[in-house]
């Protein structure tokens, strides 16, 4: 397989018009536990004027590769072997001074978090002008004019005003445009984009991707686009590289790789993403295609057939009773302004929302950041006090209950949060974390009973009994989420709110956790409120979907109808903005 790749690389080089050639790149880090290889023997080319997509999950080494190309590794990282050929030079060997003259002028980079990537105390205009003056040696006036022109080129609204603004006065999308402006200021030959849209809303993402594409064409530059999102990659990349655990596992023309992936990891990665136009029983995961050490597995053909779940679930919905009724729910937060910090206005996080959820079903709540979906989830559980309206759980009004009166209800309604890194107490062992709910709610329960419940649960969520004695920091993100799920299940709840519970996970891990949630729902007869900004995931999980925008529900429909036939313009906008993989692969059985 590796020889295949090398041969193809050589072939491309011989065709000419290769801007960069990376040969056998290896990057290692000094850690307190020894040397760690982040990138292992990586070889690829970047052709002129084309976009190379670099896909991988966390730990794959893709970001480290981009930093290595710019020679921006942190002090404990080293390029231990390999060559990076550009314009006849080996970037690994040239002096720091030479490299500096290339950075920001011939090779530029934009990063993932626009929020923190700009200096907060300088205006964005000044930061752009700094780039310009550094490499183009223009005087102040000319540099300013060029900066203004660049702002217009990256389509920042009101460029004359914004050029004097500070980063915190700009939105995420606008900040990213500024980063792009800084990166293209000197007509680079290569633009490296490290997950540039991951932190942005899906509608903004679309705009930024279009911008990068159009700039690539107009400036004739090459782009190295790094992401974990296959949908995005399928729309932007000409050539595709897939990395897994520091190694390159697949490489080729993007369309071909999508149509005919060879490596089991690529196949797994392509299959595990839920799609908007299908609704399978379960998601296939990477571990269905590949074992831990990288050997391909035989996939059961029956599993490749997609069974449409929607039909049977619609039946179920008709039969079951209401478990949660929300009527005119409002959650307002006071805004204090003025000299005396009086409350003049309210921020309407949840603004008159009504819906009904049937027992045993999944209710999807989808929207972009700031729409109020998280606040709604927390209000239902009364973690945030509602400002008005009714919450009726199994026929009982819980809106006005005091904390003490809510106690018995808490057992029946639980929540799984988004961030696996802050939802577990770092100082408690898993065993303690899981037994705590029982300690609070069933103090009379004996030790052995508790242990029995905990051991059963930990295995149900896919972990092992000997994990009980470990601590959160010893687990990965996906494993931590499983612990959170187990914790939520200790009290035998009927309603479970999943607040962006898989959003922080890698795609392959996400698929596993989603499958787990489906299995658990089946076994424990749970009702889910599934909150996410990711439409594909909501489509997979939910029976009914509510689309939220600015505190209101703009459309409420069964999942099938909402994706095939969206009525509200906001819903349409959202669906259109989701990057879709055209050309779905047909897998040859291994």
């Amino acid at each position, binding site marked *: 397989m590796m020889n295949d790749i090398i041969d193809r690389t050589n072939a491309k080089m011989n065709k000419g018009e290769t801007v960069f050639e990376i040969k056998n790149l290896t990057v290692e880090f000094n850690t*307190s536990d020894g040397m760690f290889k982040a990138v292992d023997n990586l070889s690829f080319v970047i052709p002129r004027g084309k976009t190379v997509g670099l896909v991988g999950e966390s*730990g794959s080494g893709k970001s480290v590769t981009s930093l290595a190309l710019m020679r921006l590794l*942190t002090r404990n990282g080293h390029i231990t072997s390999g060559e990076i050929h550009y314009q006849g030079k080996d970037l690994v060997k040239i002096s720091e001074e030479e490299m500096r003259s290339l950075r920001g002028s011939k090779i530029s980079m934009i990063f993932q978090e626009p929020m923190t990537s700009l200096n907060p105390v300088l205006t964005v205009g000044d930061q752009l002008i700094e780039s310009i003056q550094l490499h183009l040696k223009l005087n102040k006036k000319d540099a300013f004019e060029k900066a203004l022109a660049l702002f217009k080129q990256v389509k920042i609204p009101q460029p004359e005003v914004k050029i004097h603004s500070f980063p915190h006065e700009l939105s995420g999308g606008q900040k990213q445009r500024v980063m792009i402006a800084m990166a293209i200021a000197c007509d680079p030959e290569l633009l490296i984009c490290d*997950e540039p849209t991951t932190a942005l809303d899906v509608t903004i993402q679309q705009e930024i991707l279009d911008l990068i594409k159009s700039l690539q064409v107009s400036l004739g530059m090459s782009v190295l686009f790094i992401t974990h999102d296959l949908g995005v990659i399928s729309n932007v990349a000409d050539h595709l590289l897939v990395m897994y655990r520091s190694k390159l596992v697949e490489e080729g023309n993007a369309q071909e790789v999508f149509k005919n992936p060879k490596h089991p990891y690529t196949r797994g990665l392509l299959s595990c993403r839920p799609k908007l136009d299908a609704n399978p029983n379960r998601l296939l995961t990477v571990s269905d295609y590949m074992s831990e050490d990288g050997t391909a597995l035989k996939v059961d053909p029956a599993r490749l057939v997609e069974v449409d779940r929607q039909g049977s679930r619609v039946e179920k919905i008709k039969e079951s009773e209401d478990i949660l009724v929300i009527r005119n729910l409002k959650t307002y937060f006071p805004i204090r302004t003025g000299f005396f910090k009086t409350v003049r206005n309210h921020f309407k996080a949840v603004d008159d929302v009504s819906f009904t959820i049937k027992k045993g079903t999944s209710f999807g709540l989808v929207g972009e950041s700031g729409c109020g979906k998280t606040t709604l989830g927390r209000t239902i559980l009364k*973690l945030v006090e509602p400002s008005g309206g009714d919450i009726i759980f199994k026929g009982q009004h819980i809106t006005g209950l005091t904390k003490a009166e809510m106690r018995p209800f808490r057992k029946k309604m639980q929540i799984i949060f988004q961030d696996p*890194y802050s939802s*577990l107490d770092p100082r408690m062992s898993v065993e303690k974390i899981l037994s705590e709910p029982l300690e*609070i709610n069933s103090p009379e329960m004996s030790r052995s009973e508790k242990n029995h419940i905990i051991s059963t649960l930990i295995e149900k969520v896919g972990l092992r009994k000997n994990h009980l004695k470990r*601590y959160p920091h010893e687990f990965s993100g996906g494993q931590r989420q499983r612990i959170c799920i187990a914790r939520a299940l200790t009290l035998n709840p009927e309603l479970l709110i999943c607040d962006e519970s898989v959003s922080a996970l890698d795609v392959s891990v996400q698929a596993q956790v989603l499958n787990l949630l489906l299995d658990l729902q089946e076994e424990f007869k749970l009702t889910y409120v599934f909150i996410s900004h990711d439409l594909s995931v909501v489509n997979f999980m939910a029976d009914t979907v509510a689309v939220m925008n600015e505190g209101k529900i703009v459309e409420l429909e069964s999942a099938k109808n909402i994706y095939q036939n969206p009525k509200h313009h906001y819903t349409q906008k959202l669906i259109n903005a989701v990057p879709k993989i055209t050309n779905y692969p047909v897998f040859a059985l291994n």
Partner: protein
Amino acid sequence: MAVISAETENSSSKKVQITKEIGRSLWQDAWHRLAKNKLALACMIVFSFYIVVSLLVAFGILGATWSTTVGESYAAPDWNHWFGLDIFGRDVLMKALVGTQVAMSVGLVTVMISVPIGLLLGGISGYFGGVVDEIIVWFCSIISSIPSIMLLITVTFILGRGIFAIYLALGLTSWVGLCRMIRGEVLKHKNRDYVLAIDALGGSHRRKLFTHILPNVFHIVIIDASLTFQMAIKSEVILSYLGLGVQDLPSWGKMIDDSKLELARGVWWQLGAATLFMFLILLSLNFLGDLLRDALDPKLRGQE
């Protein structure tokens, strides 16, 4: 079994953590790292040594004879008396050893007074907010706007001289820094998901504050205790100079104060002894504080 939690990707400053053993809590992990560090070990040995000496002096086993005249006034150091003799012919080394006990007790008692106050007030202030918070913050502002020297002088002046006055004065003036830091940390943790989860489980305020939040801010207490300890020892020196220090036992401060008259005669040994003894313990505590902070930090950083 190795578990890799790889976060090298998006922030180049975070390192990859590979833990080899199972079931190690953050404290155990920090301790393990510290124990591997030779400097930390050396400092811990020094610290233990000082504690042992203090205990021996407290029980009269060591240094009980410090006040007896054993030779000529201002005798120079020799093999019998490593730091020579003072103006009354007393063994300077003995005095320094007794001074060790005085210093350690001043440091310890100051910490024991100021830490609970700072922890409690900071915890309540940060957790409950509202009026209680405003009052405590107001109180902190008042204490910190009076310069500590003035407060120390005033309090010792009013309470009379002697060691209890010093304990009280130092303890009552050193808690503000800890209070503010604890308050800040509690505010941060109060809104974290793992605390919100307790609400969802039906847990009480007590559980949230004592079982979850406080253990997660405790590392600050340790680091602050080390700094307060040092500051107490150094303040005792100033107080002795001002005549407000420990009266009946030799303290390092008294020794340094006495030496101001001795230097002109070329007698440096009392100054040398006190400075050396103080230097070693303060240095060790300082290093330990820094190293402990480093040992606890990387893991804590991962929580951010």
